[in-house]
């Protein structure tokens, strides 16, 4: 169980290697507002408050993001609260840009690959016109 009332700094391995794991806790109500399904975007028009998140914890190692835990139910987190972070989002320096992107990702349910879908009585969403852009390997940001 993550205790997000206290800051937690855990030292892993030898201090000579300077491997420091930090928990960057963010606490606020987060209301998911979008769904991605079949590569289309849907706007959530109704969501039961049971799915409102209370915050999240970004675990970094040497200031690079390792994993993220969510405080609340989410289709893209496992039973332990571990958010499914794509590989492209790992080992990146935690900065404001990254934080904003992560916040936006968390507010988006990705239904093409998820642990569960909220029942239809608890979520309603409508499709919006969208353009899906598939970047090729060379176009991916290497940072």
């Amino acid at each position: 169980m993550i205790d997000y009332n206290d800051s937690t700094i855990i030292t892993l391995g030898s201090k000579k290697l300077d491997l420091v794991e930090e928990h960057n806790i963010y606490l606020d109500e987060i209301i998911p507002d979008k769904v991605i399904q079949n590569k289309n975007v849907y706007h959530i028009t109704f969501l039961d408050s049971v799915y409102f998140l209370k915050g999240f914890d970004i675990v970094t190692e040497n200031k690079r993001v390792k994993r993220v835990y969510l405080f609340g139910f989410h289709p893209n987190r496992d039973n332990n609260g571990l958010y499914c972070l794509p590989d492209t989002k790992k080992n990146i320096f935690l900065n404001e840009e990254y934080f904003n992107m992560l916040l936006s990702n968390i507010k988006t349910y990705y239904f093409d690959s998820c642990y569960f879908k909220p029942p239809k009585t608890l979520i309603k969403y409508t499709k919006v016109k969208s353009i899906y852009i598939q970047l090729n390997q060379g176009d991916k940001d290497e940072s």
Partner: protein
Amino acid sequence: MYRTITVIGLGTLGGFLCKHLSEMEELEELIIIDDDIVEVKNVFKSIYRSQDVGEYKVDAMSNLISNNISVKKIKSKYIDGKTKIKSTDLVIDCRDIVCDRSNDIDVRFYISEKILIIDCRKNVRNVCSYEGGYRTQLNKSEINKAAFFAAQTVFSGQLYEMTKNNMVQRINLDLVSSVMDKSIRKNLKNKLDIIYDLAGDTQRLQCIEENIKPILRLNRSSDIDVFVGSKSKNYKTIERTRKINLPVERKTNYTLIPRNSLNSSLDVIQRLTEIVKKQPGISNFIISVTKDENNNSYIELIEETGAA
């Protein structure tokens, strides 16, 4: 099977047929031939829009077709045996006139009342020629379905067999309507609004009209706000760590696209891709045009998070 196709006649059936053919992945080149101009009467039953009135049909059609295939326009009347056209895998005649056909035309598609006729005969000689509109009882949506069905026969291999055997097929559109509806529904269900694949040269655009054109129109009249991720209220954060000092208030990543800086579909894709590529760790993303509570439009670039 058919990589290059010529369509003669861009009327009600020919117009919709071109659109459906252009959406087929296999097609690389489309040659369209028509000397006619879009009139107001064409808007009600054919694919053309009111803003196309006064334009040549070939010009209006090429605007309606996504630019991922090569479209060659010929603004002249096709005269059998006299008009020389580049050799293509298939030549389709969709003219609403009845005239003699030699070996150049592979198939003639036309609608008579509620029947779609696929005529694959060659060297056809008619007793008298007829020029004028179709006698059709179909509305715009039904003609679109008939064209969709015709396009399916082209790429399913069915037409290849028919042309080989000089066959004529009459299809009652009422009888196949329910099948077509199901097929179209399934097709639309699986169809993305737009896919733009930047990998190599494989670019596939679908429903370009409904999606990219509004962005171009919006940019003609005003600047566009672009947000990477959701445009949302600023969240106040409670910092618990001592080591990393994140600002107390955060704003979503924001860019402004100045008015009149987007001139084509490619501009839209390239400009927005540039914005996304500056962000850390983004792979694929989705462009969504949204309106705020004051009815102002803005663009959100939503990352495909892609993990379970």
